[in-house]
C-alpha cells in the first residue's frame, strides 16, 4: 500500500434492513460460528444487535459480556436495574456455558483510567479467535475508552504477521444508532483530557523537533467543556472541526456551528477552509476525510516541521468508528475526556431500545 492508499478505500457496510439480509446471506453460504462481544451497560439499545442476529438464526457460539464497573461513578437505580435486565435477557438467550462475563475495571482506586489497558490485555490472545467464522463486536453499550482499545487490539491481531498462520475469520463491528437516545445520555464530568490507551501516536515525544499539532475534533452536541480541555491539553496550531453532513437533520451542522461559535471562530480561530464535512451515517467517510486531511497538511507543512495529527470524537458511535479506523491506520493520537458517569435526560421507553443497525465489516471476506 502506498502512503496515500487507504486500507478501507473499498469497504463493506450494511445498514438498517440490509443487516438482517446480510446475515441471512452469510448463513446461507456456510454454517456460521460466531463469537459475539458486547457490553453489559445501561444503554437501552444494548440488546438490539444480538436480538437481530438471533432472529436471523445464526449460531452465536459464545457471547463475551463485558461488565465494566463505572469504577467510581455511581449509577442510578434505574441504570442498574436496566443493566440487570439486559444481563438476565442474555442469560435466557444463551446456554450457561456460552455466556462469558468479563469484568473490566475502568478506573483504579486513584481515579485513573485503566479500562484501555485492561480490555486490551483481556482480548489480546489471538488463539481465542480461531475456530470462529465471525467475530462480532457490538459497541452499542460500550464507552469509547473501552471500544477504541478493544477494536484496536483486534485489528492489531488481524493485521499481525505473527498470526498469519492462524485461520482468523471475519471481523465485524455492529452499532445500533439512535440519535434520540444519544441526545438523552449526557456524559457527566470528566476532569481531564488524556490520550486513549493504544492510540497515542507520536504525541508528546520529545525527540521530535518542532512538532506542529493539528487537531480534528469530530463535533457533537454538549461537549464544550471537553473540547476546551482537549484544546488546552494539546494547544493545537491548526484546528479542523469535523461536522456531520449529510445528516438526518441537515441543520445539525448549523446548530453545532452555533453551539461552538465562540470556540471555533474566536478561541481557536479556525480557518473556514479547515472545516471538514463528513457523512453522518458513514464511518468510512469520516475515516477517508481525516486521512486525506492529515496527508494534505503533512505534505504542505513538511518544509517547516513534522505534523502531529490528533483526533477526538464527540459525536455518535458511528462517527467515532471512523475516527478509530483513521487513528489506527495512520497512528493519530486520540484524545478524550473520560466522564465519571452519565446523566440520563428523561426516561427510556421501548422506542429507545431500537435504532438503525450498522454492520461495519472490518476484516475478512470483503477484503480477500
Amino acid at each position, binding site marked *: 500500500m502506498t502512503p496515500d492508499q487507504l486500507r478501507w478505500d473499498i469497504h463493506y457496510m*450494511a445498514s438498517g434492513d440490509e443487516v438482517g439480509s*446480510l446475515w441471512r446471506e452469510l448463513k446461507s453460504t456456510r454454517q456460521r460460528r460466531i463469537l459475539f462481544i458486547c457490553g453489559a451497560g445501561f444503554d437501552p439499545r444494548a440488546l438490539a444487535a444480538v436480538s437481530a442476529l438471533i432472529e436471523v438464526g445464526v449460531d452465536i457460539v459464545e457471547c463475551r459480556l463485558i461488565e465494566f464497573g463505572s469504577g467510581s461513578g455511581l449509577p442510578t437505580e434505574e441504570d442498574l436495574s436496566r443493566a440487570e435486565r439486559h444481563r438476565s435477557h442474555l442469560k435466557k438467550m444463551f446456554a450457561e456455558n456460552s455466556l462469558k462475563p468479563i469484568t473490566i475495571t475502568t478506573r483504579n482506586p486513584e481515579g485513573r483510567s485503566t479500562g484501555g489497558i485492561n480490555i486490551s490485555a483481556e482480548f489480546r490472545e489471538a488463539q481465542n479467535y480461531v475456530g470462529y467464522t465471525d467475530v462480532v463486536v457490538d459497541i452499542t453499550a460500550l464507552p469509547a475508552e473501552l471500544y477504541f482499545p478493544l477494536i484496536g487490539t483486534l485489528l492489531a491481531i488481524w493485521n499481525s504477521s505473527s498470526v498469519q498462520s492462524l485461520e482468523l475469520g471475519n471481523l465485524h463491528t455492529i452499532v445500533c444508532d439512535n440519535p434520540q437516545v444519544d441526545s438523552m445520555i449526557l456524559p457527566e464530568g470528566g476532569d481531564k483530557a488524556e490520550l486513549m490507551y493504544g492510540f497515542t501516536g507520536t504525541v508528546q515525544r520529545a525527540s521530535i523537533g518542532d512538532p506542529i499539532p493539528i487537531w480534528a475534533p469530530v463535533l457533537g452536541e454538549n461537549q464544550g467543556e471537553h473540547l476546551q480541555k482537549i484544546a488546552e491539553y494539546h494547544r493545537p496550531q491548526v484546528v479542523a472541526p469535523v461536522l456531520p453532513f*449529510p445528516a438526518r437533520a*441537515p441543520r445539525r451542522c448549523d446548530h453545532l456551528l452555533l453551539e461552538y461559535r465562540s470556540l471555533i471562530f474566536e478561541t481557536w480561530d479556525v480557518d*473556514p477552509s479547515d472545516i471538514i*464535512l463528513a457523512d453522518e451515517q*458513514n464511518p468510512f467517510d469520516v475515516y477517508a476525510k481525516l486521512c486525506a486531511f492529515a496527508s494534505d497538511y503533512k505534505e504542505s507543512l513538511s518544509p517547516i516541521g513534522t505534523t502531529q495529527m490528533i483526533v477526538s470524537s464527540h459525536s455518535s458511535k458511528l462517527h467515532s468508528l471512523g475516527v478509530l479506523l483513521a487513528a489506527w491506520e495512520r497512528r493519530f493520537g486520540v484524545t478524550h475526556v473520560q466522564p465519571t458517569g452519565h446523566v440520563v435526560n428523561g426516561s427510556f421507553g421501548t422506542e429507545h431500545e431500537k435504532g438503525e443497525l450498522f454492520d461495519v465489516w472490518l476484516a475478512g471476506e470483503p477484503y480477500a
Partner: protein
Amino acid sequence: MKDSLAEALLGQVMEWGETDLTTSNTLLSLQMLASQKYDGYERFRPGRKFIESLANWLRQFRTVDERRTALEFVQRRLLFISNDEMEQLVGILYPKVIRPIVRHYVSNKLGVPRYAVRRIENDLEFARVRRQSLFLGLSDGARMDEFRRSNRDLSTEQVYATYEVSEPRLDEMRSQLLKEQEQNDGDSSRFELVFLIDDFAGSGKTILREKDGVYQGRLKRFSDLLSSDSSTESSVFSGPDTEIHICLYVATKQAVDHLNQAIESYTKVAVWNCPPQVHFVQLLDDSHRIEPGDEPAFCALLDDYYEDAIEDEAKQIGGSSSKFGFAECALPLILSHNTPNNSVSLLWAPSPMLALFPRFERHAQRKA
C-alpha cells in the same frame, strides 16, 4: 455595505435599544452564519450580503412584532445548503450511492456475494461495467463537471451535463466506447447503466408527472430518447435492459414518494424492463415542512404578504398557488446557487416585497 453598518441597520430595523444577552447573541450568530454560509448565496447582487439583505427584508414588515416573527423564523427554521455542503454531496454521491450500485450489478453478473467487495472491484468486469455507465445531468444544478472531477475513475466520455443528448453526440459516445472497450477486449459497446443526476427535487414533478394519462417531465424525455435509440441499429443504450438510476443530491420525502409512485405507473407503458430507481444523498423529511399548525405566526405573515402576481405558468403545474412554494412543498430551503421555488414564497418571491434570497427564474429567462 460595510458589515458593521449592515449590523447597525439591522439593530435599528429590529428596534434593539439597549443590548442584552439575546441581542448580542443573535447578532453574533447571524454574523457567523452569514460569513460561513449565507453570504455565499450566488444570487445576491455584487456587494450585497446577507445581513444587509436581511435588514432590508425585515424592514418591509409593518410591525416590530412581525419582524421578530420573521427573524426568529430565519434563525430557527431556515435551511441553507452552502456551496461547501453541496460539494460534499457531489463528492460522496459516487462512493456512497453509485459505486455500490455498480458493484451490486457486477456481483449479480459474476455470481459472487455482494459483500465480496474487493473481489468484485478487482474483477475486469467491474471496470467494464463502470465504463459502460453513463452519467447525465438533469439540470444546470447537477454540477456534472465537479462530479466528474471528484471521481478519477470515470472517463470524460461518460459524463455529460445534459440528458438531452443530440444524435451526433450519441454517435460519438458510441464510437468512443467501442474504441475503448475493444482495446480492453470488451464485448459490448452499449451503456448498461444510466445515472440521471440532479441537485434537488422538491416535488419530483419536474422529473415525472402525469396529467390525464399523459406523462411529462425529464424522465419522460429521457425515456423517449431511450426508445428512439433502441429502434436504431447502432443503439448507444442497451434498450429495455438499460438500468436507470435517478440520483439526487437533495430530495424531499415528498419527491421520493411521488417519483416512486409515478415511475411505478409509468413503467406499465414505458420502454424499460425494470423501473428506474430513485436515490438521494441528503433526504429532507416532512419535519422540514412549514405547517400552519407549527408556525402559526410565520404562516400568518405568509398570508398577509402574499400576492398572486407571482403565479406563472410553471407554477400552475405545481397545482396550487406558490404561497407555500411550488406544489405546496412548504420548504424553508435555500441552495447556495439558487432558491428552489418549492420554498415558501416570502423567502424568494420578487413581489410584493424584496426577497431575502432573490431567486433566479429559469422560466422567465427563457421567455425573455
